[in-house]
């Protein structure tokens, strides 16, 4: 039988006999270099053939995109600069600000009072912040022992970006898997997660907060968080808090 180089040459030319092809395929199983070489030839031919076939579609799509994209990626129009003194707009702005400030002081305009208070209680666990450039390392299988820790790091990014709905889902996954033996959880601060979970739920939907505070007070969580829960409870029961229902 011929050597590998001759077989590769014949493969390129499409001149392998049935027997030679069988011999080549069999050799590929044990010879990684040979397998790599044949795969490279196949991939080159695939790439060239696909490019040929796809070219007309590619051109058509590019033309369509050119029609559409201008509407969605238009640069912001340049702002006309009006000297402050000549503009009377500041008077209007000041009046509007006054009108906004009154309801805002009552926590009624952009944020509810629950959200204003919840935000002041939300805590970051800065020790797990990962460089965002390293984010691609998170692409591990869900069975990986570090998966939960990566999610924990991910929750910090969500926290930074104020993506509270996603943060809530992430906390749920983390807390549900606290006892899961397949994960390495020693670096995860579950007490902090339990606390932040309560606060996030208060931010998103306040209905269950009182019950959640009571549950936390009755639980085995450390005094630090029980104190916080007590403080939050007192704040919620304060007459000023009750006043602005």
């Amino acid at each position, binding site marked *: 039988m011929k050597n590998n180089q001759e077989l590769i*040459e014949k493969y390129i030319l499409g001149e392998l006999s049935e027997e030679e092809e069988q011999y080549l395929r069999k050799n590929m199983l044990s010879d990684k270099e040979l397998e790599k070489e044949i795969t490279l030839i196949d991939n*080159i031919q695939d790439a060239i*053939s696909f490019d*040929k076939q796809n070219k007309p579609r590619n051109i058509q799509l590019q033309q369509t995109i050119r029609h*559409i994209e201008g509407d*969605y*990626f238009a640069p912001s129009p340049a702002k006309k600069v009006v000297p402050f003194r000549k503009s009377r707009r500041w008077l209007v702005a000041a009046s509007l600000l006054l009108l906004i400030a009154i309801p805002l002081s009552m926590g009624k305009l952009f944020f509810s009072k629950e959200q204003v208070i919840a935000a002041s209680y939300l805590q970051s666990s800065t020790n797990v912040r990962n460089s965002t450039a390293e984010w691609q390392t998170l692409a591990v*299988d869900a069975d990986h022992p570090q998966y939960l820790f990566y999610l924990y790091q991910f929750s910090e990014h969500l926290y930074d970006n104020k993506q509270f709905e*996603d943060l809530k889902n992430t906390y749920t*996954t983390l807390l549900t898997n606290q006892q899961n033996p397949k994960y390495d959880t020693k670096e995860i601060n579950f007490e902090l997660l339990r606390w932040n979970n309560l606060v996030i739920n208060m931010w998103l939907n306040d209905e269950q907060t009182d019950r959640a505070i009571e549950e936390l007070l009755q639980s085995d969580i450390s005094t630090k968080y029980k104190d916080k829960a007590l403080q939050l409870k007192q704040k919620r029961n304060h007459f000023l808090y009750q006043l602005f229902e």
Partner: protein
Amino acid sequence: MIPHADQKYLVALVENNEPLIKEIYQHHSADVKRYVLQNSGTIEDAKDLFQEVLLELLRMTAKGFTLRKPLKGYLSGMCRYKWIDKLNGDKKNRQRMRVTISGNNREYIEMEEELKTVFRKEKMHALFLEKYKTLAPHCQEIIGLRSTKNETSNKLNSLKEIAAMLDRSYGYIRKEISNCMKKLIQIIKSDVRYMNL
């Protein structure tokens, strides 16, 4: 495997269905724009990135890719990957990357794994094409013909068929295909990007 309802958008790319392609822009361009602008890019960068991703999706779909999850996840993952790739090497920019991803995280991570494989293959094919286009025109022509399937037999064109198409002798075509292909393999192998793939 049942494709996700958003598969219609991928089919729209292949069929060049303008109203549906417009919907892709309506639903997703704002996210991409925000992401690029938050990560040291400009509107122009965002526009180019979005186009690049749509063309990539077209290629993937034409090769049989099926959407199993909402398009949003793939689009944001692909944009992020491509943007990181673009900024790769620029340490200052990399430090300023911000993550803006939504959806279920476990699903996202699975998607990342899938995208990694797809991108690796796409990068490899792009490199092969880049090198193929550096070959002499006659080499491109005969390798192109050798890489194309005969419509009747559904097999790669044989040397005999190529010789007939180009009105050349069988011996000449045999020698040229061998030389040109060897040259192409050699220049691909000597590129550092191939070694890193």
